[in-house]
């Protein structure tokens, strides 16, 4: 590994150089450059503990969950339910039965939009935010249009904050659902979820939180947030793709109808009607992604071992440092100034399109996201076609921020004199 990126630079808690050795992919070089991976908000890299847990499941414990009397099936079932308990602990949820495994945040939100559909009537309102990812925006927009409900957007301000007064102003007696992100994937804003939830509940609405960027970047106590549903994706919390979790309040866990139907989610199937299983099995039709669940459990346990508070503090410190370093560059503008920022930031370079900046950074081994970040409604509001986004994980270092800043400087110089 490159010495320059392997310094012991964590401002808090853990030894980053040591931790980096747990990520096999960080040994990769891109041409002459070590990989500088600043795209964890899209998907995080995986520590060996996760890769090995998945591999071990397939090598030693693979069988279908809750389907057989043979010993392996019993072990696989125990591993899968053990994973659910680990995810519940990670979320700060007392009862694993309120945690359903899903493919990811997108599936979780679609599950909610489908199973809440009957509660939304013509003339009702669904409130989302300008900061939402398409996956917490489009399902609600579609539901509203299918049910003849009003689709209302709470606007963010110039800083990328969602003012409480704005939410209060947009809530009404007809608001049935309030959907919001815990952390904006485009700007890094941490939203005041419990304050918003209190107001939404007072108005009689249910609160759905897209935790795709909350789970990787913040310590969670989902019950204290006092929301009705909280979704996240395993692949962004150092776990495998194809697995995520949806936490449901006791009431929703009890009341929501099935999403998909089929095997695994039934009690008895008659010729005429079927009796469905209780939560969480009611929401898990079909053979579950057991290896992925086991991998996700390994990931959240790994995070807990490193220390979630320490990871969060490390990432925020890196992001704040990157904001300051990038803003010190003439011609570079950081987009959004949230008072509370998780490990994500967006910026633009004068005269250079974000894709071109992305390519210049890539040539220096720096992986960032350039584009609309699945947040076109927000990009429209910001008046930008796209931004460059850098996002930080436990394994990133201050030296990598420096590599980023130097590559951004090079991009700026290359395009200097370009169209503004």
């Amino acid at each position, binding site marked *: 590994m490159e010495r320059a990126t392997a310094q012991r630079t964590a401002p808090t808690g853990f030894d980053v150089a040591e931790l980096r050795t747990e990520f096999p992919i960080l040994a990769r070089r891109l041409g002459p450059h070590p990989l500088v991976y600043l795209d964890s908000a899209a998907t995080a890299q995986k520590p060996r503990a996760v890769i090995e847990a998945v591999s071990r499941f397939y090598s030693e414990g693979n069988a279908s969950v809750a389907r057989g009397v043979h010993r392996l099936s019993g072990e696989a079932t125990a591993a899968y339910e053990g994973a659910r308990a680990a995810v519940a602990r990670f979320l700060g949820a007392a009862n694993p039965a309120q945690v359903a495994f899903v493919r990811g945040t997108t599936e979780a939100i679609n599950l909610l939009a489908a199973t809440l559909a009957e509660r939304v009537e013509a003339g009702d309102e669904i409130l989302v935010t300008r900061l939402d990812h398409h996956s917490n925006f489009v399902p609600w927009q579609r539901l509203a249009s299918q049910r003849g409900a009003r689709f209302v957007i709470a606007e963010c301000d110039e800083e990328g904050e969602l003012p409480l007064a704005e939410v209060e102003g947009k809530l009404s007696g007809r608001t049935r659902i309030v959907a919001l992100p815990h952390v904006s994937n485009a700007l890094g804003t941490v939203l005041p979820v419990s304050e918003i939830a209190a107001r939404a509940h007072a108005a009689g609405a249910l609160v759905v939180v897209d935790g795709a960027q909350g789970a990787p970047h913040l310590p969670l106590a989902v019950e204290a947030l006092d929301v009705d549903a909280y979704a996240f994706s395993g692949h962004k919390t150092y776990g495998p793709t194809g697995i995520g979790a949806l936490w449901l309040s006791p009431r929703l866990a009890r009341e929501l109808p099935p999403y998909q139907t089929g095997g695994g989610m039934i009690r008895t199937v008659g010729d005429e009607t079927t009796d469905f299983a209780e939560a969480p099995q009611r929401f898990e039709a079909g053979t579950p992604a057991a290896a992925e669940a086991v991998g996700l459990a390994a990931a959240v346990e790994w995070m807990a071992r490193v220390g979630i508070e320490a990871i969060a503090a490390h990432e925020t410190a890196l992001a704040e440092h990157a904001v300051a370093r990038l803003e010190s560059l003439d011609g570079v503008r950081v987009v959004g100034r949230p008072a509370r920022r998780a490990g994500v930031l967006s910026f633009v370079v004068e005269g250079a*399109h974000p*894709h*071109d900046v992305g*390519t210049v950074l890539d040539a220096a081994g720096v992986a960032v996201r350039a584009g609309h970040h699945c947040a*076109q409604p927000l*990009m429209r509001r910001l008046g930008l076609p796209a931004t460059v986004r850098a996002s930080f994980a436990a394994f990133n270092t201050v030296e990598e921020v420096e590599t980023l800043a130097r590559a951004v400087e090079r991009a700026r110089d290359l*395009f200097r004199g370009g169209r503004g």
Partner: protein
Amino acid sequence: MNELAELYQQVLLDHYRSPRHFGRPAGAEREAEGFNPLCGDRVKVYVDVEEGVIRALGFEGSGCAISTASASLMAEALQGRRIEEFERLFAAFRATVTGGAPDREVDLGKLAALAGVAEFPMRVKCATLAWHALEAALHSPAGGTTVSTE
């Protein structure tokens, strides 16, 4: 950094900063939009065709340096050319930016400045966006269409 210098040549940067044939030419009765949903780039191409000849060609849109310069250089290269010439030029251009073997008979002219794209497979769609739009505009009856890269 040599690959970068190859990619962002002066000709390309010049056409990005000052695109030629920007806007809708008078008499352009056909148009099509190229859209890359992955990145949100949009290029709208306007063309006036008479008896198989491109009388006027212009474009509008917001995009990266590569898609903008490619549209500008394409518009410059094709004024007054026949549709068959567009087809041959597009084939040769596409072969060049994808690292294939272009038809040696075809002279790319200034479009050769985009040859560096071949080293950046992630950017091929930027380079060909306006070309796909022009192809759609030429093949569709009068009126607009949108072609998507995905």
